[in-house]
């Protein structure tokens, strides 16, 4: 999830792009951290800012770009950022989803897409990968990596590229 992300679409894929990938690696049934991310996604799809914040620590560090913008630090700053995002995302348009993930002791790695419509009508889809670091069951650091020019172009009204279509036309992780 980032300031730029969230969305819609069901791109039918420039199919072959990911066809060489083996079947999705299934998570273990002991998955502990992924349910927290699922709760965040469910809250954000309802534009429930406090529901998202309930899953993060007070001193959360949210690095929601691959290094092109400074980190958002602390729950209050995250609340402001989410509130600003909420104002520009069309309600009900959010199709944020995760394609695959893995967990280590206190970290969840994921690959997914932020897909949403802006209230001004543009459709945005940003494939990304990232990691969540946990402390006491809450997310304490959140890092996302993607090419910021993809979101900038789509916000400016440019159509989805074949590369993006291919990346987001994948089954959702379970």
């Amino acid at each position, binding site marked *: 999830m980032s300031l730029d992300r969230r969305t819609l679409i069901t791109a039918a894929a420039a199919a072959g792009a990911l066809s060489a*990938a083996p079947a999705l690696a299934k998570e273990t049934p002991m998955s502990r951290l992924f349910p927290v991310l699922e709760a965040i996604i469910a809250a954000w799809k309802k534009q429930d800012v406090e529901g998202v914040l309930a899953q993060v620590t007070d001193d959360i560090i949210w690095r929601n770009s691959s290094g*092109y913008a400074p980190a958002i630090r602390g729950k209050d700053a995250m609340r402001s950022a989410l509130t600003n995002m909420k104002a520009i995302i069309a309600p009900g348009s959010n199709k944020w989803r995760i394609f695959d993930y893995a967990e*280590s002791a206190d970290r969840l*790695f994921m690959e997914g897409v932020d897909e949403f419509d802006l209230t001004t009508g543009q459709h945005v889809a940003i494939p990304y990968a990232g990691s969540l670091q946990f402390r006491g069951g809450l997310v304490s650091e959140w890092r996302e990596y993607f090419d910021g020019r993809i979101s900038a172009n789509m916000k400016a009204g440019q159509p989805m590229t074949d590369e993006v279509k291919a990346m987001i036309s994948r089954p959702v992780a379970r």
Partner: protein
Amino acid sequence: MGRCYGILLKVIEAWQAKDIEGVLSHMDDDIVWHYAAAAMPPVRGKASARKLLNRFHGDMHAIQWRIFAHAESGNRLFLEGVDDYTTADGKRVATPYAGVLDFRGDLIVGWRDYVDLGVAAEQKSGTPLTPQVEMLLDRPVAP
């Protein structure tokens, strides 16, 4: 250390030695390599991967590619790291990224690196590393 991560370390070692055939020896013939996922079309097949590596070879020097964190699920490896090198004209490029590698047996068959090419372009133009990039790089290397 996970099985897949051990293989990636061999790839890194080969690339730091500029050993292109060593890198390719860990790739499946059918590899689909998204070296800038969603931003650029992928490279498909080992022959195309060789061409890309040859292109990189000429412009990447003092390679300090390193991984900060990783986890595996089945035949898939997730990682966070940095591509850190000096260009032929002396510019430092250090792009934080997250990657996902799919394995078939011991060979990489899918490779997706998520990186902001805008950050790399600024650095290649001579802009110093930003504080937010420096912070992303200021992490211990994963064992």
